């Protein structure tokens, strides 16, 4: 699903100040029936993450935390079974899982002498049953299962999607008889930067030489693509030469502008692959 910048902007426009719930996602699908669900979810998730990055700081001032915590205490005091934490997150336009983290951290500060470590908080979020306060445990759990952009479950889904597409790509490479080194093999050899696959014999895709392939199970928007370019794709180019990036959920067409320089974008496994023919050069 390759979108033009204009098409992408139209979708992104509809996502301003929309809470990351399954209901929002449903509406989005109705609004853009021609786009695949996965693409929409990926765009939604990325747009929402951008929004959170922009507003993250203001939710983490000590005043804000104190105010959220007091509001939380007030409301659970009245009705512990109501979706207090979730509603609080929606009211202040913040991700439910992140709001749960703020309140949990604040709660633990109050009930423990030492400030809780990050890993303790993470493990409590992964398994809210371990939270000493029953009501808070339920509230946190509710936030996590209702958040479709943040939280341990979402992280796991994203990780699984990434892994699945790597497997998919591996199978396609095997099917095409293209020999490769995968990330684990590269790491074992001590490579400092490792794309998903390095082809042992380069191929040409649409006339461009390809030495490596990176699988991205997400939509390639400007923000993420630039970050990937800086942290990964150029680094791969710097070590292994030109390569191919597959954004399985599509990308903004205009971003595919580095083909000549050695970074080719595709939204699926390429069909036009030219391999080196051994001995064909001999007259």
């Amino acid at each position, binding site marked *: 699903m390759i979108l033009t910048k204009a098409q992408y902007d139209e979708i992104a426009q509809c996502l301003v100040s929309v809470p990351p719930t*399954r*209901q929002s996602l449903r509406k989005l699908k109705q609004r853009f029936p021609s786009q695949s669900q996965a693409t929409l979810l990926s765009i939604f998730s990325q747009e929402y993450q951008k929004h959170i990055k922009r507003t993250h700081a203001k939710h983490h001032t000590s005043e804000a935390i104190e105010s959220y915590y007091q509001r939380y205490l007030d409301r659970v005091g009245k009705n512990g*079974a109501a*979706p207090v934490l*979730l509603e609080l997150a929606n009211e202040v336009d913040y991700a439910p899982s992140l709001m749960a983290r703020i309140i949990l951290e604040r709660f633990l500060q109050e009930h423990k002498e030492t400030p809780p470590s990050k890993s303790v908080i993470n493990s409590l979020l992964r*398994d*809210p*049953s371990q*939270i000493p306060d*029953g009501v808070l*445990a*339920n509230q946190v*759990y*509710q936030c996590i*299962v*209702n958040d479709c952009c943040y939280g*341990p*479950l979402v992280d*796991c*889904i*994203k*990780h*699984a*999607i990434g*892994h*699945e597409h790597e*497997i*998919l790509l591996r*199978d396609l490479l095997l099917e095409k008889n293209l020999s490769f080194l995968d990330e*684990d093999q590269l790491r*074992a*050899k*001590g*490579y*400092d*930067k490792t794309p998903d696959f390095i082809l042992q014999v380069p191929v040409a895709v649409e006339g461009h030489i390809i030495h490596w392939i990176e699988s991205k199970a997400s939509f390639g928007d400007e923000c993420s693509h630039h970050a990937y370019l*800086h942290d990964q794709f*150029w*680094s791969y*180019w*710097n*070590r*292994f*030469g030109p390569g191919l990036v597959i954004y399985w959920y599509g990308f903004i067409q205009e971003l595919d502008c580095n083909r000549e*320089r050695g970074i080719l974008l595709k939204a699926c496994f390429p069909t036009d692959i030219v391999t080196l023919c051994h001995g064909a050069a001999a007259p």
Partner: protein
Amino acid sequence: MPGVGPGGHPVAALGRTRPSRRINPTPVSEERSLSKPKTCFTSPPISCVPGGQPSVLDSSPWGQGPAAGCRSLQEEREMLRKERSKQLQQSPAPACPTPESGSPLPTRTGSLTAEPADPAKVSSRQRLELVALVYSSCIAENLVPNLFLELFFVLQLLTARRMVAAKDSDLEPSPGVLDSLESPLFQSVHDCVFFAVQVLEHQFQVLSYLDKGTLKLLAENERLLCFSPALQGRLRAAYEGSVAKVSLAMPPSVQAVSFQPETDNRANFSSDRAFHTFKKQRDVFYEVLREWEDRHEEPGWDFEKGLGSRIRAMMGQLSAACSHSHFVRLFQKQLLQMCQSPGGAGGTILGEAPDVLNMLGADKLGRLRRLHERLAAPQSSCRPCPLTSFPGCQGFFRDFILSASSFQFNQHLMDSLSLKIRELNSLVLPHPEPSDEDGESDVDWQGERRQFAVVLLSLRLLAKFLGFVAFLPYRGPEPPPTRELQDSILALRSQVPPVLDVRALLQQGLRAHRAVLTVPWLVEFLSLADQIVPMLDYYRSIFTLLLHLHRSLVLSKDGEGEMCFLNKLLLLAVLGWLFQIPTVPEDLFFVEEGQVDVFEVDTKTAEHGLDGVPVVDQHLLYTCCPYIGELRKLLASWVSGSSGRSGGFVRKITPTTTTSLGALPLRTTQGLQAQLAQAFFHNQPPSLRRTVEFVAERIGSNCVKHIKATLVADLVRQAESLLQEQLVTQRQEGGDPGQLLEILCSQLCPHGAQALTQGREFCQKKSPGAVQALLPEETPAAVLSSAENIAVGLATEKACTWLSANITALIRREVKAAVSRMLRAQGPEPAVRGDRRGCSRACEHHAPLPSHLISEIKDVLSVAVGPRDPEEGVSPEHLEQLLGQLGQTLRCRQFLCPPAEQHLAKCSVELASLLVADQIPVLGPPTQHRLERGQARRLLHMLLSLWKDDFQVPVPLQLLLSPRNVGLLADTRPREWDLLLFLLRELVEKGLMGRKEIEACLDSLHEAQWPEDFAEELATLFNLFLAEPQVPEPQLRACELVQPNRGTVLAQS
């Protein structure tokens, strides 16, 4: 626009060039600034630009100062003229006229139509013939510093458009004064052309070695045809017979230096920090390079402003991490990769430009014109003598060094460049094969010539940068102002050892008859020297050697043991260029003879000297000396009538391939065997030796890799299983890794001794086949078997030397890595890879993706937990289908990774809790909002079976009895406990949980605070469960034994 040069240029050349004796320096001016480009002591080209001296190349401190204006040059010339006339008056012969100032001047301005030249109108034929002869002899004997500058001048005369009268005097020659010394030598265009053609006739041999394009232009020149049809015929024949295509290199695309684990992985760094710093630096370096590529042509963009601070920040980090040597290696490799080909130098083969324009057609003309101007701009001097420059990509590297301004970096760079120069300079290069005489067509031979070109160009590039960095601290715009200051600087500098002992290398090169390789790079190095350098004894002696060499390279000498013609021509061109560099003192070329007998220069090539091998071709000559292309440009501009825009002809592009330098030959050890091997190779074709050395080198290296992949890998596997044993039997989670490692290594390292035996076997087995495959079929059996044996020996030696020194360390390193890998995998997230993946063979991997299932189950959980819209709910069928899919996915496993499976396990438990507590809102008729008991039981059964049979990760079943999940029951009215009891019984029955484990969980439930009635009911459940008949404790599952589930362990303790 009048021509600047006075009409007597050829006379100027003559005044100091008499073949009968050496030339004495002509004092011109004591204070002439060294920063001015030189034009005297050789025929200065006629300028075609107003104030037409070389434009300023570079105003930065290492570059040249502003060019002298026309006026000062005029004055200088005036002085020269006077000086010459004085000398001429004293010397008896030959009779050379001193031109009057104000004699007619040949002009080359394009806008004027050319005056036709007529042989019949030549004013003083005999005199011109004589002068031409003397002049040509000077050129032939290398009594002029720069051969090509003279040729350029002659071609300027050939293509002069008309004479411009500088004085209104009557220029008509009167018969009486025709041959008088007082009359100007060139009185008309006819004279100029006549003289030029005369000289060209004498210089035919050199001309015939120029590139095909120049020959064509010469042969097509109508004046030349008109004045000497014979010469034209010879040129035409030379053109037709010439194969000297100077191909256009394709503009190189930037390629990065590839990452090589052998030199670049963690093992090559002293610390993690150094490794990671360098990882980042590599990326910063290319980021900077890309930005430079994009922007350096933008007007107003400045390297230092744009990139300087980023480069320095990076250098700062490198210094902190002591990673300079790694970075320098990257820098140098990238430099060689980008700048080695002439295209990489920015396509500065200027003579090519018009052809490119023709070739690409008009549509791209505008763009190309701009490109051409940019490329041509630094060399618009119109003379084949440009100043040192860093064209194209070289500019990036120069500016990088300047912006980095890092002492450490420069030092490392000099070390590295020096080493590489030594290495390449001593590389064994092709020797003539006595048996093979079909030269050009021979495949081997072409490869060898290409290799020579690659080595030579690499050396020149490296030497240029070495010179640049080495002399950078001393470079200034002007020479020291006073003698005293100069002396004190000399005293200081003379005690500084040279960065690279170039004198020794030059002497070796001359002795070994490898001047053709050594001198061109040495010239590059010296061209970047500062003004003090030529005054230092060390360097002065080098210049003396070079001068002697220059004089000995007489092109016309041909015969046994002489240096090849093009080899000589290349040396003459580069030396001539060096003598014109402003920092090289002018008097250097004309030193007294007594001073030069420091070293005997013998151009007679010994048996195996490189100088006697035709390693230089026109392409290499033009690549090294692109300014020779000025000759062609000049001729082309004559054809086109304008200054070099069109003309020429379309030529086929032959992209040049940059070949790798190939493997360095092995240094053979001493001993009789080695001597015998040497002797064996002595009478064999050199390709045999290279093949054997190549095979040995590769097999030796492969042998080490093979040992790593087999023996060492086996040992690592042993280490892993030993470690596994220790971890399992002693439940020694994590232990002391250092201690564990020591134990393992002490057990395993002795096995390393096998490496040598196995290595020997490997080389013995592999080498002969490779040698056989690479040598000609016709190789005599005895030669073949000797070659094989030597290859086996060399390969074994290489492999075993390495192995015996490194095998223990290698095993240690690999085992250490394996141990830390395993200990990491022991962490809370059990990540057992590999052995778990894979489903049945028949599986076609059509099961739903794990990510899809997690997301579906998450949706069910979120609907159940709420908040939800009134119309939201889950159908029992959907739930059943979901669990069915979960089963498929768990059985397929193709796409499953441990974290996903863990989450699926956890979600399935959460789902079970919701089922037990009847919390799942059901879609259906409005009366029915709850799942039927039967349906719920069926779903729980499905879950139980998944837990028992399909999950391969521990399922956190104890969560079923966590206060939170049990608390879900507290909210339901009426409370129904039967499903929970059912589930607990099934868990025990299926062996999924032990009774004790459940009892412990139920016990801990009492600790939570419950409503009183709920606590009572809970107690009842507890009692009910306890009242059940005891079944034997079920066997724990294997995977839980290996990696005990923490929850289970906790519950049991």
